[in-house]
């Protein structure tokens, strides 16, 4: 019996993985070869999907990118015995430089195990962290998170332990753990892959959070654009209940934690934490003014920890491996690892998890291999639709929160969207305003109206057609509008939309008729 792995994540399936799996099963049957087909998550090497792996005595061997039409040839070349005769052979998966040169903590199990199998999860270190946490007092759990240096991975990079302390210190009969799985930023898919490839890591992290702050109910707020993640989570939750890792007696401890997944409904603003809470309560996703902090008055008015998927998942690793291990990685005040996501016009797109401290250029060139189109790179947007566009002169920037803040840019959730030299940066600035207009919650005027005005002003710059006066007047107007949005908006939607706009004007003036 040979074990063959074919990924089941969204991107692999979008590239035909289901057809590859079916072809492998059919071909094996017709050749009387006994195989066990496992649908693993993905390793996150999306440029190699569909990446088929075969278990051999010498480790797992990789073949990719495989299309259904390649399958018969792979059998002819003896791939099921781990032979390396096919043009699609990559040798041992772990030796592929893209993977080998990463430091995987969050994605250590991704693509290796069947995401729905608790046994496989436990065989790879899963639930060891919960076992430790169950033996700790709540305050010790929170202290451990503080000691790890973990900061929120959803964008604002707020220290997780400090948020948890506030919830622990706020007395209440009911408290909640909410996972922000709204992952709305273009160019990001780390949350999605984590949920599709290793969902128990998140479930375990949320359970530890519940123990840490005294919350017995958790919700995962998942964007509706992620149907596969939804299916995986539903089954994983059922399996965790079935195995006694959720419910009224977690792992025989007598302690309770219940967890449910809830779907968003296609609103980017519902990734903002207070809007998300309103949405979970069944309302329109309007941003709430802070204070009060959600940690004190959160979901249904109760103290609530709200953290990103990666933040909560990392907690399991911290309790498995220790806070010292985690804080030993990284640089300055950015500790641990950050899963970066290479997207857009890039030759080798995927997840690249590294300790903080490498540079953007290393990421895009060494891992990414340049553009997919083969044309020169022109601009890179880091940190989602509210992040700045960076020109080549800034690509040596170090991947850490403070370095990005100093450059008036944002590391955010770690998305890196690459554009080649055919991009028109005026169009990108216009899109930033248009996106804000479409997705604004509507509560404040600078955001709601300012973004619509922004589109109009940029259209006038485009239409100035050599009329320098018209262009310059409108560039000044655009700058004033950006000021109004930056300083007059309640949340970062309106407040940060000026960043991509201004960076486009500043770094690429030629696209604005200069």
């Amino acid at each position: 019996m040979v074990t063959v792995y074919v990924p089941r994540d969204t991107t692999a399936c979008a590239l035909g993985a289901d057809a590859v799996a079916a072809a492998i099963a059919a071909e094996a049957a017709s050749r009387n070869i006994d195989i066990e087909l496992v649908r693993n998550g993905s390793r996150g090497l999306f440029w190699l999907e569909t990446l088929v792996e075969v278990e051999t005595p010498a480790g797992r061997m990789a073949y990719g990118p495989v299309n259904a039409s390649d399958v018969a040839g792979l059998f002819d070349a003896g791939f099921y015995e781990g032979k390396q005769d096919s043009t699609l052979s990559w040798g041992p998966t772990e030796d592929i430089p893209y993977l080998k040169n990463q430091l995987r903590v969050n994605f250590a199990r991704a693509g290796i195990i069947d995401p729905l199998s608790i046994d496989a999860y436990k065989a790879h270190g899963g639930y060891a962290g919960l076992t430790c946490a169950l033996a700790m007092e709540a305050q010790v759990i929170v202290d451990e998170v503080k000691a790890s240096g973990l900061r929120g991975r959803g964008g604002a990079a707020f220290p997780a332990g400090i948020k948890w302390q506030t919830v622990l210190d706020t007395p209440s009969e009911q408290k909640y753990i909410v996972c922000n799985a709204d992952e709305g930023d273009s160019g990001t898919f780390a949350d999605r892959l984590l949920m599709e490839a290793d969902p128990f890591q998140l479930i375990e992290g949320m359970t530890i959070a519940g123990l840490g702050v005294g919350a017995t109910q958790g919700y995962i707020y998942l964007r509706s654009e992620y149907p596969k993640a939804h299916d995986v989570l539903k089954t994983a939750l059922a399996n965790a209940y079935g195995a006694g890792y959720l419910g009224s007696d977690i792992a025989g401890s007598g302690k309770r934690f219940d967890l449910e997944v809830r779907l968003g409904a296609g609103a980017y603003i519902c990734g903002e934490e207070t809007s998300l809470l309103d949405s979970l309560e069944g309302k329109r996703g309007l941003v709430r003014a802070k204070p009060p902090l959600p940690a004190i008055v959160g979901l249904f008015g109760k103290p609530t920890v709200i953290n990103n998927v990666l933040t909560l998942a990392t907690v399991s690793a911290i309790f498995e491996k220790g806070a010292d291990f985690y804080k030993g990685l990284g640089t300055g005040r950015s500790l641990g690892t950050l899963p970066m996501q290479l997207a857009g016009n890039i030759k080798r797109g995927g997840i690249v998890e590294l300790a903080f401290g490498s540079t953007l250029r290393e990421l895009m060139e060494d891992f990414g291999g340049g553009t997919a189109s083969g044309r020169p790179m022109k601009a890179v947007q880091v940190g989602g639709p509210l992040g700045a566009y960076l020109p080549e002169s800034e690509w040596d920037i170090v991947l850490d929160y403070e370095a990005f803040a100093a450059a008036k840019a944002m590391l955010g959730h770690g998305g890196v969207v690459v554009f080649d030299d055919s991009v028109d940066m005026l169009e990108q600035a216009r899109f930033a305003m248009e996106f804000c207009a479409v997705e604004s919650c509507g509560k404040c005027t600078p955001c709601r109206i300012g973004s619509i005005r922004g589109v109009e002003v940029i259209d006038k710059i485009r239409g100035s057609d050599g009329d320098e006066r018209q262009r310059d007047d409108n560039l000044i107007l655009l700058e004033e509008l950006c000021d109004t949005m930056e300083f007059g908006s309640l949340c970062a939607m309106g407040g940060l939309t000026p960043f991509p706009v201004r960076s486009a004007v500043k770094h690429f003036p030629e696209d604005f008729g200069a």
Partner: protein
Amino acid sequence: MSTNVQQAAVQEILDGMKTMPGALLPILHEVQHTLGFIPADCVPAIAEALNLSRAEVHGVISFYHHFRSEPAGKHVVQICRAEACQAVGAKALEAHVQTSLDVSTGDTTADRNLTVEPVYCLGNCACGPSVQIGEDIYARVTPERFDALMADLDINGGAE
């Protein structure tokens, strides 16, 4: 489906779900999943079951891009408009879709076979342009690939 049948289906959903905390979004999802859209004449029943005003329920339905108050075409095609897909030709793809199907984004074809909608990121940003047809997401969708997908849809369970 007649209005009565629709209302009975909605009532059944309400009976099963109305006591869950924050029930409105899960209920709306379930109604849309069952009926394909959220009929305006079901709003009063939903409002009553949850002790909300009709305006509140209507406000929620219209706030979220995902919910629809009108039936869609037989197939829903969503085209990603976000930055990572823009970087690999999403705009040209959307233009191609509009001309080849003779429909603007947000509308349904005259034969009611296809509804074309914008979507802002499907999490497939390393292999765009991304398109979702029904429940399935497709990667690296060039105009040619899109035409092939449409031809496939016609053969396998497309227009009657």
